[in-house]
Each structure stands twice: as structure tokens, then as C-alpha cells.
């Protein structure tokens, strides 16, 4: 029995290079990374991979090559279905193919496949097209960031099956303890700072409805999961400052000071606002407990 001409490691590194080449298997065979492992050209590849009765070796390798991009593009389209709808399939796929080349999967889970896609889009976005156009590339980056976080919240840690902070429990806290109290936030609660108010557009695109790209303005969104349903909550700047401080573990007093610094409302109005906000957020399962 003759010894194999190529080690298992050489064959695997070679084949991976061939089937992940964006220009097809023949180009992959000639690529430096493949040649480094198995030094045969496309015309001699049947020394490595046999032909079948109906297909040449390159045609057979191209089945894997097409499937590699087809399969992972489909996964990214699923994960970023809102962004894909907004961009259209052709443009989305162009970005996604570029992303797969610079960020190939290195994990056992497809859950991490798209984790750097928003950053990739931000780094590869086309330049703004003059002053007359809305900065749609930046808008799409915001949309991708929000969609990634919605997906992370969907399957990440949550509060289901565990006790949550109720309005009754909040009212039991004596007024003099509030400034130093700390609220334990739900593990699913995430905050997003965006350059565009994308949440409304996100909802429309999720329903496969077209909507105009809104003008740029600083925007804040809370994303949380309750009974396995993910919801988005648009926030004002004071609300965002307050929740961000609470998530960072600051006391309620300190968090309220951060909100007050950004709020145009007077003390009485702010007190009324705070009462309403905490009622809304408690109902929306933002908090698990109050301590201190």
C-alpha cells in the first residue's frame, strides 16, 4: 500500500483555502495559501481530488465553494433580516461577502457569525454623498447595531422564571433610603446609543414595510426581554443617562443627578417624570430587585 502523497493536515488546509476562495475553486487552487499546502495547479488537481463519471474535480470542489458562501450568506440574512430588507439583497450580499472574507467564522456556533458585522459596516461604509443626501450608510450601521443587540437579547440571559421588582416592592422602600439604594437591572436589559432614530424604521422593516430614512439626531433605545419577547423602548437623553447609571451600578440618587443634569424640566416636573418612568420600566421588567 503506497503512502498518501499529502498529510491529512495539508489536505484540509488546502481544501479549506480552495472552497472558501471568493472567485471559485479554480482560483482557490492557484491561491498562495493553497499552493503552500498542495503545489498543484488547477490543471493537475485530479492528482488530489478525483473526478466522477459526470463532473471534473474542479466542478466537484465548486459544489463546496458555492455552498460555503451560499450557506453563510443565508445565515447572515436571517440574523440581519431587517438590515437585509433595508439594503436590498444585492447590496446586503456584497457587504456580507466582504465581511465573511475578513471575519471568517472561528466558533462552533453560528450565533457569533455576525457579531462584528456592524463594526465591519462602519469601517467599510462608503463616504457620505455630499450634503444633500441623508447619511444612509451611517443609518444602516445604526440599524445593524440595533438588530445585533435585539438578537443577543433574544437568546441571552433573561429574567423568566425569576422574581422581578414590582411596583408594590418599590413603594415599600422608605423615601430616605432612595438616594443610596441600588436597582438590580434585568440581565437582558441593554442600552444603545445611535446617531439616527432607527427604532421606528426598524419596526417597519421588520414588518417588511418601506419607510423613509429619518434625519440624523442622537437617539437612545433600551432593549429588553420579557416572557421571551424582545421589545424596544425609545428613550430621551435624561432617561438614557438614568438607566445607564443604574446599569453601571450607581446609586439611585447619583443616577437621578445625571438625569437632572440633562433634563430641561424643573424639580417638580422631574419628580413626576421619574415616578412615571419607574412605573413604566418596572412594568417592562427592567429591574429585578432593589438593595441598600
Amino acid at each position: 500500500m503506497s503512502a498518501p502523497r499529502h498529510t491529512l493536515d495539508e489536505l484540509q488546509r488546502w481544501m479549506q483555502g480552495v472552497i472558501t476562495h471568493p472567485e471559485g475553486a479554480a482560483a482557490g487552487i492557484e491561491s498562495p495559501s493553497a499552493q503552500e499546502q498542495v503545489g498543484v495547479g488547477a490543471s493537475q488537481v485530479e492528482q488530489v481530488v478525483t473526478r466522477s463519471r459526470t463532473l471534473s474535480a474542479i466542478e466537484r470542489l465548486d459544489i463546496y465553494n458555492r455552498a460555503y458562501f451560499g450557506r453563510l450568506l443565508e445565515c447572515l440574512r436571517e440574523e440581519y433580516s431587517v438590515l437585509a430588507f433595508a439594503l436590498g439583497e444585492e447590496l446586503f450580499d456584497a457587504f456580507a461577502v466582504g465581511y465573511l472574507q475578513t471575519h471568517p467564522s472561528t466558533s462552533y456556533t453560528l450565533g457569533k457569525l455576525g457579531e462584528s458585522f456592524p463594526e465591519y459596516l462602519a469601517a467599510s461604509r462608503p463616504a457620505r454623498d455630499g450634503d444633500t443626501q441623508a447619511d444612509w450608510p451611517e443609518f444602516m450601521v445604526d440599524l445593524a447595531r440595533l438588530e445585533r443587540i435585539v438578537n443577543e437579547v433574544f437568546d441571552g440571559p433573561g429574567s423568566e422564571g425569576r422574581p422581578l421588582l414590582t411596583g408594590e416592592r418599590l413603594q415599600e422602600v422608605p423615601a430616605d433610603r432612595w438616594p443610596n439604594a441600588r436597582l438590580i437591572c434585568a440581565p437582558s436589559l441593554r442600552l444603545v446609543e445611535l446617531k439616527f432614530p432607527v427604532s421606528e424604521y426598524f419596526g417597519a422593516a421588520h414588518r417588511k414595510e418601506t419607510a423613509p430614512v429619518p434625519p440624523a439626531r442622537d437617539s437612545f433605545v433600551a432593549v429588553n426581554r420579557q416572557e421571551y419577547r424582545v421589545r424596544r423602548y425609545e428613550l430621551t437623553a435624561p432617561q438614557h443617562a438614568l438607566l445607564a447609571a443604574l446599569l453601571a451600578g450607581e446609586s439611585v440618587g447619583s443616577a437621578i443627578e445625571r438625569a437632572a443634569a440633562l433634563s430641561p424640566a424643573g424639580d417638580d416636573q422631574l419628580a413626576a417624570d421619574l415616578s412615571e418612568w419607574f412605573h413604566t420600566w418596572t412594568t417592562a421588567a427592567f429591574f429585578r430587585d432593589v438593595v441598600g
Partner: protein
Amino acid sequence: MPPRLGHPDLGLGVGLRTAHFGHILREWPAVDWFEIISENFVDSQGRPAYVLDQVAERYPVVMHGVSLSIGSTDPINFEYLEKLSALARRVKPHWISDHLCWTGVAGRNTHDLLPMPLNEESLSHVVERVGIVQNVLERPLVLENPSTYVTFADSTMPEWEFLSRLTEETGCGLLLDVNNVYVSSVNHDFDPIEYLNRVPHDRVVQFHLAGHTNCGTHCIDTHDGPVIDPVWDLYARARRLTGGVSTLLEWDASIPAFPVVHAEVQKAKQYFGDCSGRASPAAEPRRAVAPRSTKAVSNPVAFIVADSE
């Protein structure tokens, strides 16, 4: 070694898919058992995990993975194995399976089930790794024959021989995917009946059935339709040779409503008790196998990341 490694014949099951979560939780359909894709659940802390816990309370469950990469020359991913173990402690599967394949090398994962060169070096490599994995999982591993589209000039043995020696040397079991036998037999011009005759029948723990795409010059394992009649014929033969084992239908793309998937696997009953090796007379017209023009993608995995129903 007892037949099926001592595992029970669970009957006719289907793959647990996100698209069917709502139906299953509402109807609790009378399916014999579910197979889960392990990677869908090892990290889940959301609704998929919740649904799985509900399902595992009511049905027999088997864990089927796609990322073990048992044939890769990369180091074994022990973090992944620990997560499999933790999931197994939670859902108590009857067995844990994956594929005879590699999914990537040099730290990458193509998320495909890539073919092994079948020779002494690769057999020795896989034997060693199966032993390590079985020690971590504290149970025999069950490995599936994949659909493949290339063969290597360096291969020195047929797949059935590789699998036979692998089971002999490691004690692992086989998940015999009858559709994959058919697909590979078309792609590599071998006789599927000889393949079925030669695999070690007492090591077959489970069958897979699925639809595939006939591209004229080759077949692609697309899991996107009903099982074709030639595959049912092979299934009948495989049942006769093994005495019958747990049977599972995979439907992973263009997924229809749950009752359609369930009805498809129920067709297997037409092939029970047939000892001739020939299919029973079909109760419905047999489907022609016309080539389809297609951009078919093998081993669809998008259902793994789908987050909605």
C-alpha cells in the same frame, strides 16, 4: 456488543426546528421522539432553551451536533465538549451524535460537513479523537455518514470500511443516513446496496431520512423536501439488515408546517416488516426523480440562526 449499543428503538422522530416551536407547544403532537441540533441550544438562555426544556420533559430526545469536527487536525475544542456535556446533563438525551467529517482547520469553521480522505492516517487520527471525545462525554459517540461531493486520490478504502473499522476500534455507534448513502452513491458512482450490506449492522443506532436535490450530474443533500422513493427502498433494506432502529426525518430548508413533516416520517411505516429488501407496494403514486435546475446549497444551516417562528 448488544444491537444499537443497547439503545432502544425510539420509533419515528423528527428534527426539532424553530419554525415548529409554536405548534409543538400548543398541540404536543404524537411524535415518538425529537432530535435537536446541539448547537442551537448549548448557549441558549432564551426561548429555544425554554422550549427544549418543555420538549425534553415530554418526549425522548437525542442530541445531534454539527460542530464536533472529529476529523479535523485542529485541537479538539474542549470548551465545546464541556458545553455538550452540560446540555446532556440537562436534557438527558438517549445518545449524542455528530458526523464523520471536519468542519474547518487553522481555527476556522466553514460550518460545512467536509469529507475526509479515507486512509490509514485519517482512520488512526479519527480513532484517537473519538476515544478522547467519548471519555469527556462519558458515553459512546454516534457518528453519521455525511453526504459528500469529492473523493480524494489519497483514499485507500471505501467509506463503509472506514466506518466499520472505526466502530470496531472505538466502540462508537453509527447514525446511518440513508439519504446520504444515496446522495454519495450518485456522486461517487458506487453501489448503495453494497454500502448498506457492508456497514456493521449491529452498530447502527439510528437512521436519518431526508430529501435532496437532483442536479442531473450530481445530487446535493438539501433537506428541503420529501424523501424520494429510491431512498425509501434503501431504507427498507437497511431496516431488514439492522432489524430496525430509531428513524428520524430531517427537513431544514423550505420547512413546511409540522403536520407535513410528521406525516412524511410516518410513511416509514409502509416499510416496516418487509424482509425481502424490496420496498412494499407504495400506497401512493411514486414520485419521478426529475433533475432540477438549482442553486442548491448542501447542509443548510440557516435554520440554526432563525430566531422567529
